């Protein structure tokens, strides 16, 4: 050993008396650090051995102590740990299973988003006596995140300018509740025409029963969006919403109520009669259920796994519009060798008009045809490439007026770029995508209308496009630059031959 401290002991005092050589000092420090590291490693090893040796040791969690809690309620934390301290679990804990349980609980703490991610845990033997089981104490140390978070900024893009303001108050009542307020505006004058949008939102969210996966939220919002570039109008919305998110074996669920006052207004002088007919006020009062089962490795550029999603909306609990709107989405990705992967997706939806008041009220009227702001739209760089945004389906003059039934499907082959390889977020893609969007026709009844729409769907090949392009999966959004050629289209449908740029978070 070359360390000076490892010399013979009788030399030590002599050495201390002599002048201190800086080189020796630094060497000493190094040695101390080295020793500490060795000790730590030894301790860790010893701990691992201990746990290994005692993994089946029957234990009982005597107490859990949490350090660093300032704003979080004790009652809330009690609930978080209640599961780990359940009597039947306490009776069957081994050291190993107790550790696992505690780790699961600290992960739960993470998910509330009110603590910094550096949550640490120590175990010790407790002094309390629990019969023949060894009592252990858990010390958990946390650091609460700041209560108030403000974000503000301006965004200036190519032809877009805007600003936003977000405020979040975390842990409002000490039970991981969140109060979120935001305001944003943006204006753009791209080649697609003048677009403006603004939105204001206030939401309060709280976990139910201290479970980070079961969240109730309630809020109010106000937004306006210009749809001039595809349908010659603006839509303003204001309303209230309440929702519940929870997990089951089938996937993650979202149950939402929405009460929205919509206003279709500020029509262009050359707006089509279809848009004029739907201009004005309408109130939608609806319940929406969303089920998502997502096993994809990445949402933006999946290479393996699948997504299944079902959205069902029932509108007409009061309000001016009554309908049942169902959409399903399925996506499957398969990895091949050399970083090559294949993705295929299918989306479909149907909107069924229902009797006003859903037939419950006395003065129920027959089903009214759907409105432009309830119908589906299809086409654009994020769903059917090779077509302009909302370029598929029925059009009245210059306006896309949407449809009541749609199917869209696509398949993409992703190849890693030479040199960059499969680890980089860049891919070359070759794709084929297509779909149909049709409207219910004026007819005697809804059933006949639906059958007629389905029949129309079956006429000819769906509108389709194929092409190749470059994909960049940025952590926030996916960017695509494609060269596409429409293969099959309908008259009036707006195809886009050549280069097309797309930004989005959900691609077909």
């Amino acid at each position, binding site marked *: 050993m070359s360390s000076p401290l490892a010399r013979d002991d009788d030399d030590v005092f002599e050495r201390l008396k002599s002048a201190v050589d800086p080189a020796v000092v630094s060497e000493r420090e190094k040695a101390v650090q080295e020793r500490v590291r060795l000790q730590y490693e030894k301790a860790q090893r010893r701990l691992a051995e201990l746990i290994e040796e005692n993994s089946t040791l029957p234990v009982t969690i005597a107490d859990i102590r949490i350090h660093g809690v300032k704003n979080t309620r004790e009652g809330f934390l009690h609930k978080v740990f209640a599961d780990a301290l359940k009597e039947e679990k306490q009776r069957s804990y081994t050291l190993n299973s107790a550790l696992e349980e505690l780790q699961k609980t600290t992960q739960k703490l993470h998910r509330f988003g009110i603590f910094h991610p550096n949550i640490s845990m120590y175990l010790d033997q407790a002094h309390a006596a629990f019969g023949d089981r060894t009592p252990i104490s858990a010390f958990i140390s946390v650091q609460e995140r700041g209560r108030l978070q403000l974000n503000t900024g301006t965004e200036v893009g190519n032809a877009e300018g805007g600003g936003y303001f977000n405020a979040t108050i975390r842990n409002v009542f000490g039970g991981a509740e969140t109060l979120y307020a935001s305001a944003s505006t943006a204006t753009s004058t791209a080649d697609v025409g003048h677009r403006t949008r603004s939105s204001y939102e206030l939401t309060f969210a709280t976990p139910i029963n201290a479970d980070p996966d079961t969240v109730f939220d309630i809020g109010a919002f106000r937004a306006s969006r210009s749809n001039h570039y595809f349908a010659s109008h603006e839509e303003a919305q204001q309303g209230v919403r309440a929702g519940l998110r929870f997990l089951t074996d089938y996937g993650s669920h979202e149950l939402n109520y929405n009460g929205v006052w919509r206003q279709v207004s500020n029509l262009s002088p*050359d707006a089509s*009669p*279809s848009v*004029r007919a739907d*201009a004005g006020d309408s109130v939608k009062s609806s319940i929406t259920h969303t089920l998502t089962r997502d096993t994809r490795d990445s949402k933006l550029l999946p290479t393996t796994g699948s997504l299944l999603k079902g959205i069902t909306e029932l509108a007409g609990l009061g309000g001016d519009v009554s309908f049942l709107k169902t959409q399903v989405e399925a996506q499957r990705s398969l990895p091949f060798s050399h970083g090559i992967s294949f993705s295929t997706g299918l989306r479909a939806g149907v909107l069924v008009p229902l009797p006003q008041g859903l037939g419950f009220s006395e003065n129920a009227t027959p089903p009214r045809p759907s409105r432009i702001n309830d119908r589906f739209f299809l086409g654009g760089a994020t769903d059917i490439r090779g077509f302009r945004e909302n370029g598929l389906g029925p059009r*009245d003059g210059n306006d896309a007026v949407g449809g009541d039934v749609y199917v869209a499907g696509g398949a993409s082959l992703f190849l890693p770029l030479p040199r960059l390889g499969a680890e980089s977020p860049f891919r070359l893609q070759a794709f084929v995508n297509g779909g149909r969007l*049709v409207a*219910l026709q004026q*007819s005697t009844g809804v059933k006949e209308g639906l059958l007629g729409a389905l029949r129309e769907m079956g006429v000819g090949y769906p509108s389709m496009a194929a092409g190749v392009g470059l994909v960049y999966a940025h952590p926030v959004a996916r960017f695509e630059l494609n060269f596409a050629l429409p293969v*099959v289209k309908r008259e009036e449908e707006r195809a886009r031959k050549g280069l097309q740029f797309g930004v989005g978070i959900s691609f077909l």
Partner: protein
Amino acid sequence: MSSAPAPSRTFLPIPPLLRRVFDSFPLKTYPAPSLPASSPRPSQKPTLHIFTTPSAATNGAPSFDPACLRLQTYLRLCGLEFTTAPASAHAAPAGELPYLTPAGSRAAVPARKIISWAQEQGGGVHEDLQEPQIAAFLALVEGAVRDAYLYALYLEPTNFLRLAAPLYTRISSSVGLVQIALSHELRAAAETELRKSRPGGVIVADEIYADAAAAWKALDTLLGDDEWFFGAQQPGMLDATVFAFAHLVRKWAWDETERRVQTPLETCKRLMAHEERLRKRCGW
């Protein structure tokens, strides 16, 4: 004129062969998808979009809004065949009802162009609305009479709650909260409109009603014992405008304590007879 195609503005020259390949796409084109059920089908007759209820629209009954009723009456007097349809003010060009869609057309004719549209269609009334006397009396109705009408319907509290608010907001939404919000907007708009037209922007009920009473008197004198204004053979724009206000002022079930807009008109017997005469002529 050259027969060569215009040079494309792409920065890369595309070889003719490639261009031919490009131009062959799409390989297959099907007929256009049909429009949704709510899209209006091209109609055989022109359609006048007005404030009205769906049932009144099918009967061609008079609108409850003076600006709409005025042009509805005028088109009837022109002897033009048309249908009426209920509409939201948001649907109208420039946000002002009425508007008109000509037969078989997808375009909208805004309110201010309906008169010239009717004349192009060979409508029966021939008159020069710029003629000073007609213009002056039209301004009198659109000023003094309209102000009193606005005040009586929107600013008199009981009238507003019982008459204007239900009719104007129920056609927009069936939801009570929205109706309340819209009725506030409606009232504020009427007040702004009144402030614009009253001298100094001051709204004094007595003055407004007195001005309207004087206007009715003047119109009654102008009409005299003639059948139509200015002794014309056929009723014209002034007849339609006076009728629109006189008809609604007579028709509304004004509140007993807030009917100061109605009483002065009832003393003008010749105007009352004119209103009845024109109503019969329109078949209402």
